[in-house]
């Protein structure tokens, strides 16, 4: 039942996207916009109504819906705008709303790194290249944008395929829910790991102990050698030495003292995924080398060599560009 509504909503969304993609009159595009927003709302409402929302989560859900609207609308604008620079800028909006969604999902570090790396670095690169390579409309004869930016290519086939995929992906959402037992098991494991992580961070541990009890002077290992011990009710106990005594006593840390997201991500990177970390570095190095190679000036090659490289001998009479000597 619910998947059917979802499919119908997807179909409506597909129609809307198609209307937006076709180089049609303004009225069609306006109608497409309206239909698109309506179908998006329909999709989201369908999902929300299918799954009950507790009151405490209502805010979260509401914000998620808002960010959803923004990111999807911006994404549509990315693909339908006839000017590339605007597409890139809308993409920035997508990234920002995506970061908001990440924050709502308790992934703060990733959210900010997304903004910094994506919107800050990658998108700037895109904008640079766009400015560099884009042809000005006045050169090509007066249209508002170049022809290959204005006219979409086989929108019907693309939209159909894409939204079939959407229906497939979306139907997974309405599959069986997770049992409560799994959820609590995950929770227990996560808290344990988090306390263990805190145990590896002496400064943070001391800081938290001090926050709990200002009299704490230092944290000492416990009798079993571990620095921190998780307890059943998600609290942890550490052995501390207070200012005015030398004996170690237990200090209970409340769940509010759990390490924050950034620390946990960092700890995971270093302890659980060290190899991937190194490899990521290697990838970046390769990318840098590749960029250097690609950006090499081509004028050192002779004309014949360049032609042979390009294999343009075989393309004699095709739409080979006249000015090859540049660059």
């Amino acid at each position, binding site marked *: 039942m619910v998947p059917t509504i979802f499919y119908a909503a997807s179909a409506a969304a597909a129609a809307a996207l198609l209307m937006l993609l076709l180089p049609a009159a303004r009225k069609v595009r306006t109608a497409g916009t309206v239909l698109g927003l309506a179908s998006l709302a329909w999709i989201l409402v369908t999902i929300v109504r299918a799954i009950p929302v507790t009151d405490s989560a209502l805010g979260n859900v509401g914000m998620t819906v808002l960010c959803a609207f923004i990111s999807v609308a911006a994404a549509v604008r990315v693909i339908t705008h006839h000017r590339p620079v605007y597409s890139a800028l809308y993409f920035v909006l997508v990234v920002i709303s995506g970061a908001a969604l990440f924050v709502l999902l308790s992934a703060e570090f990733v959210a900010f790194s997304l903004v910094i790396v994506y919107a800050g670095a990658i998108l700037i690169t895109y904008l640079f290249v766009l400015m560099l390579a884009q042809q000005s409309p006045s050169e090509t004869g007066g249209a508002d944008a170049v022809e290959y930016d204005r006219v979409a*290519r*086989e929108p019907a*086939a*693309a939209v*159909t*395929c*894409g939204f*079939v*995929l959407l*229906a*497939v*992906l979306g*139907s*997974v959402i309405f*599959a*069986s829910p997770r049992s409560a037992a799994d959820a609590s098991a995950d929770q227990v494991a996560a808290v344990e790991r988090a306390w263990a992580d805190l145990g590896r961070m002496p400064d943070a541990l001391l800081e938290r102990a001090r926050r709990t009890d200002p009299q704490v002077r230092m944290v000492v290992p416990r009798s079993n050698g571990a620095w921190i011990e998780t307890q059943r009710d998600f609290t942890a106990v550490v052995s501390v030495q207070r200012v005015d005594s030398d004996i170690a006593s237990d200090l209970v840390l409340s769940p509010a003292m759990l390490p924050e997201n950034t620390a946990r991500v960092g700890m995971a990177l270093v302890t659980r995924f060290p190899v991937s970390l190194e490899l990521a570095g290697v990838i970046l190095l390769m990318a840098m080398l590749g960029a250097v190679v690609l950006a090499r000036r081509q004028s050192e090659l002779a004309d014949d060599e360049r032609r042979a490289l390009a294999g343009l001998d075989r393309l004699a009479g095709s739409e080979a560009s006249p000015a090859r000597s540049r660059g």
Partner: protein
Amino acid sequence: MSSANFPIPQAVVAPEMAWVGLALLLPLVSAVLCTICAAARLRGKWPAVFTVLALAASFVVVLRAYNAYSGPVQVPIFEWMSFAWGDGRFQQFTAPCALYIDSLTLFWMLFVTGLGTLIALYASEYMETEKGAGYARFFFGISIFLFAMSSLVMGDNLVMLYLGWEGVGLASYLLIGFDYQRPSAVAAAKKAFIMNRIGDLGLALGIFMLWANYGTLQYSQLFQAMNAGGQTAVDWDVSLIPFLLMLGAFGKSAQFPLFTWLPDAMEGPTPVSALIHAATMVTAGVYLIARLYPFFALHPDALATVAWIGGGTALLAATIGMAQYDIKRVFAYSTISQLGYMFLGLGVGTTYGACYHTLTHAFFKALLFLTAGAIMHGFAGQLDLRKLSGLRHIPGWRLVSWTMFIGCLWLAAFPYTAAFFSKDAILLQALTSARWDFVFLGWLGLFTAALTAYYTFRVWFRVCCGPVHFEPAADAHHGDAPHGAHDAHGPHGHENAHASKAGHAAEHAFHPHAPKWAISTVLAVLAIGTVAAGFPAYNEAFAHGTNWAQKMIAGSSAAAGAQIVEHASHAAETADIHAAHATVLGMEAHTGLLVVGATASLGGILIAAYLHLFSRASADALRRVLMGNWFTRWLPICMERKWFVDEIYHGLFRLPLWIGSQVLHFGDKHFLDGVLVDGIARIPIAAGKLFRPLYGGALQGYAVSMVAGVALVLAWMTWVWLRGFE
């Protein structure tokens, strides 16, 4: 009355007479030698030499066999077909290569081999312009023909007869179509062969039925079965046997309705017409019925059918022959007519009359055809009797004219000729029969005799008498020019509606090529033979001795069969009693028939003399009178147009078949070829065209198709996965 009183003579197995098989083997040897001549490209008359020698040798063998004859014998030569799949009578099939020699066989073989030799000798000169492969091919055909005819006549079982039957049909086809570059000859050959096949179907079915009911195909055993069992109660399918057999006989012997092939067969060279279509092949039907005569008692109306068909065909052919202008055509129709007499004879019960008439007819018809051939050979293919006249006054042509006169006289059954006696035997039996329809047929036969005499002497008076006048045919080269289409032109008389290209000027420059020694010798011998063929009858009539022919026939299965038939049809009297007590026109039978027959013959000759000798213009006048009146107009028209039988065939058979073939061709071309074959071929092509845009080369096109594939696969997988949750 049991037929045990008139047993068919039993055949004795005589392996020591295997040398008679040479008569069968020698023509085959000469055929092989002719092939070698053709392959070795020998020039000269070697093929003719081989053939004439082989045929003469077979004639000698037959003579020796005749001398050594003492009763029916069965001569095994080698084991040919013999299968047994059980022990019962109907679980074995034996058809050895063996000979059954009784007096009927010898009677037939004598004139077959004799005439064969003479005509081969004639053909050696007649075909001399065909030196090389054509010459050898001709004599190959003659040799094959004689081998097949010998197998037909001498074989001891129906399989050998059928082999010979088909073999003569094949030889006839090869020889009619000898000048294969002429479309009319090829068409005539095909027509002959196909029409024969229709008859052969009847013969084949008859043979099957015989085997199915008697369990054997060998004559000796069949006759034994006939001797032993009664003919009183037979199943309806067994009683069909005679009708099936007679269908075969009618096909081969050109009786109604299967006769139209014979006039067209005149497209072949004249020796072929003489040998095959006058003397030997066309008598195979008569031989078949004579040999298996006892089996014609299986149905009471079988022989009556034969008689009616024979009598009717005789009259029909005679009327057509009266209106033809091509000499060979006239003779062809007269052959059909005389064969009708033979079947009439068989039908009314006188096998002697039929067989004796076969003998006399063979001689005089061969003679007539050979004279026509000589005329054709000498006058560059001219055979139109409107364009030839007064031949007997031309030096060098006297022999031809007078031998033709003898032939015509015999054909017209002039009183006291051999043919007169043989025809007399047939008509006597018919007129003195107890059945009213046989009597009617007898009078019809007499009327036909008058017509025969008329048209025969029309030819002779026109061609050999009167003022000397001749025109060579348009194609001055040797060969039988197409005459078929020229028959029905113009009026009955002498008007030249068809302007000959030679014209009167060329007439004086053209010299007829008189026949040389080979042709002349043969004509003379044949003329003597024609006269001599009457000696058996003369012996009986004047010297009151034995009639050799009757003796030959009486000792064979034919005569015994006749007696069986007589008894099966519950005739109260024997043939002798018939002859003794019957009357013809109030006079005693023999005398009465003599008077009536002579009147018919002489009357015909006199009318022909008036219309074609004394006042030729009166023929035209008669025709004009007939054509003028609306009623009588149909008579000459039908006679000239051969009673439209060919047109009826065309409408009944050829046209529907042609329409059917057009329909099937259309269906085959458009449906089987177009829809099925081409259509199936177009499916992969269309599939290819459908899928080719996938490889357009555009990057995003590839992307779209990839995504489509992924979407479909994922959809299916998800569907399966989700179903697992239900």
